[in-house]
């Protein structure tokens, strides 16, 4: 059963979502400081990978240049907060808008290509951006980047200090949840489902009346905007940004997290990021030497044996179990 059928999800599904939601809300008060930090970071990386999932898992285009959006979003935040007006909200909005404009421009070029042409194109454009970011140091600070001081968080009349990691956590969780909801609604809507049709069969989608070039641009823009939003929260968490964010390694990580977690599931990227970031954290100090090999093997194994990733395969199994017990019926 396709992931799409999950949207008219069972009661159990909602219970799981509710459970995860409650856990996330309680987490900062239960977890120790560092796990809380990791969790905050995982939410950002998960959101970033969600951006990748939109274009890869849902639309079927492998964008190997996601780091560009993340970098653009991060710089968008920093510029606004540092040079325009010290407001976190303005920063987030600015990061998102920067990424959106950037993805529309780039998307206009790249979405006319598909398959491997698209892959190489996106790598090349992200490399161009990386070289420029390193070169234009008066604007970007190159690899040393720009450090910022975070203003207080203002919500209507209340002020919260962002020196408190718990405030940061809730802010980031809130923004990520809102973005996730928008993406989720998008893929439940007529236009979002049409995007998925492109992944399945682009020629046919076009034939039954979909302007696939336009839809791909829409998906690409949404993908870039979500990744940019994640990027905007990076300096929010770490008070710094640098041109290194544009490097292709970060794009590779988005691929890794999403494929492992489950491409096309929307939840998968978060799961993948959680699993692999904690794994990297736990392993890289005592398994330094073999960690990359492990990652390589995992990637190959997943794509060959369970191409829907951990979560996608789980969904599939549950769905087929359910189907075998209640034949027929739409929902």
């Amino acid at each position: 059963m396709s992931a799409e059928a999950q949207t008219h999800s069972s009661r159990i599904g909602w219970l799981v979502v509710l459970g995860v939601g409650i856990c996330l809300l309680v987490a900062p008060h239960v977890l120790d400081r560092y796990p809380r930090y990791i969790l905050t970071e995982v939410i950002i990386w998960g959101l970033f990978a969600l951006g990748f999932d939109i274009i890869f898992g849902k639309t079927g285009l492998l964008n190997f240049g996601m780091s560009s959006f993340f970098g653009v979003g991060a710089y968008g935040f920093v510029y606004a907060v540092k040079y325009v007006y010290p407001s976190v909200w303005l920063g987030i909005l600015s990061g998102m808008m920067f990424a959106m404009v950037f993805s529309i421009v780039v998307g206009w070029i790249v979405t006319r290509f598909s398959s491997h042409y698209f892959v190489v194109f996106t790598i090349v454009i992200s490399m161009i951006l990386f070289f420029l970011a390193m070169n234009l140091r008066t604007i970007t600070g190159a690899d040393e980047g720009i450090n910022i001081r975070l203003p207080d968080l203002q919500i209507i009349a209340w002020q919260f200090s962002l020196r408190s990691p718990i405030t940061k956590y809730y802010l980031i969780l809130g923004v990520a949840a809102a973005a996730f909801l928008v993406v989720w609604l998008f893929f439940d809507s007529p236009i979002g489902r049409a995007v998925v049709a492109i992944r399945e069969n682009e020629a046919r989608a076009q034939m039954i009346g979909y302007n696939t070039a336009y839809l791909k641009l829409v998906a690409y823009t949404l993908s870039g905007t979500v990744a940019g939003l994640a990027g905007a929260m990076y300096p929010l968490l770490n008070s710094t940004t640098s041109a290194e964010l544009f490097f292709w390694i970060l794009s590779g990580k988005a691929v890794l997290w999403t494929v492992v977690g489950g491409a096309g599931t929307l939840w998968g990227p978060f799961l993948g990021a959680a699993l692999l970031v904690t794994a990297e954290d736990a392993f890289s100090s005592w398994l330094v030497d073999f960690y990359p090999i492990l990652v390589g093997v995992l990637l190959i194994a997943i794509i060959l044996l369970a191409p829907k990733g951990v979560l996608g395969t789980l969904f599939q199994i549950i769905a087929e179990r359910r189907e075998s017990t209640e034949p027929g019926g739409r929902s």
Partner: protein
Amino acid sequence: MVKPKMGTTRRQFIKTGILGAGALSIGLGFPAIVRGKTAPIRIGGLMDMTGGLWAFGTWGHRSIEAAVKRVNAAGGIGGREVTYVMEDSATNVQTGLRKLRKLIEQDGCDFIIGPCNSGVNTASAPVVEQFTTPHFAWGTALSITQDKGNRFVFRGINNIRHGMVALAKIMGSELGKRYYCLGADYEWGRSVISEFRRVIDPVGGKMVGEEYSPVGTEDFVPYLNKIKADDVDILVGGYFTGDILKLARQAYEKGLLKKMQIIGGAMPTGIAPKEFGPAGNAVWFTSYGPQRMADVPDALKPFNKVYRDAIGLDAEGKDAKTGEEGSPSYSWTPWEHVFWIKRGIEKSGWKGKDDVGKFIQALEGMKVEAGDDFPQGPKAMRAQDHQVFTDQYVYKIQDNQYQLKGIVPAKDMDYPSEVDYTKQKV
């Protein structure tokens, strides 16, 4: 997307189960949270164990480990044991920042010794300030103790500015006035060149050209083509380790190095001088410490031997066990950082987090003598910018050997501080 065959079979279920379990077990590797409440003083080492700067990280790690062992063997600091936790920052800013948090927040480290990677050090500055944890930077980019630093950041090693001043002084008459700059397009590469210009321009240096190549350049010839051998005395190479090797060899093969000399940004780590081949005879380096025992001033020899023996570095600057090239130019710094921490604690009577202010004030302006604790030589920690001033070494490759050309004492490399951290709150 991938279209799997329909129908989940038992086999597929098992497959997924195994993969899922594998992934989960990776996740659950998350170590238990251990928080020290009592005695030990915790030092965290953020080291680039993997990635481009792995060689620095590996030697830095050995250095700290040995120093901590030595401190503990002598009864710890003020009777308290010192524990050392290392995290791999993977020569990557994002990973480095996370591991920094891990050291501070999870492992409860009281002091951080940073990696050789300037990018990680500058990005760490706001974090250590937020957590009021003193950070000892090892990178040599000038900005770490200037605009990018703050009151919690110290650096126990000279920076590129010292390096270039020393080079100019030692090369003296050999230093021609016409120079051409070619550097890697990142901050460190650029600052090598700007610091060189800062030294040479006031004494009549004439820049013939300036170029920055994108990171990861394989072929330098398109840029070398622009250089006319007769017009240039010195090629300033703002490159690190492997890249300076490539640059020198390609310049030699192009016939540029008949008279021209090359200045490398810093002593390479892990690269044997013979790798340079005949190109080496034109290559100069600035070095933050002595390469071989023979290069160490007599007064410092006994101290240097203690440190070398402790970390397994032989008299030639190689790994005593494997015979591979070490990082003698750099690896003394993390060792000394441990002892800066020790001195700071002893002087301030630091007991825990609340005494950080006292600790910082104790280090500001502190002078230390050479000894087993400070084998590289005597040093002064300048109060305003937390920059150490110490001797700088200058090397040249000659006949497949790193040959010491001179040592420049700290007093000859002084420069006014552009910042004053002492005005910041602690």
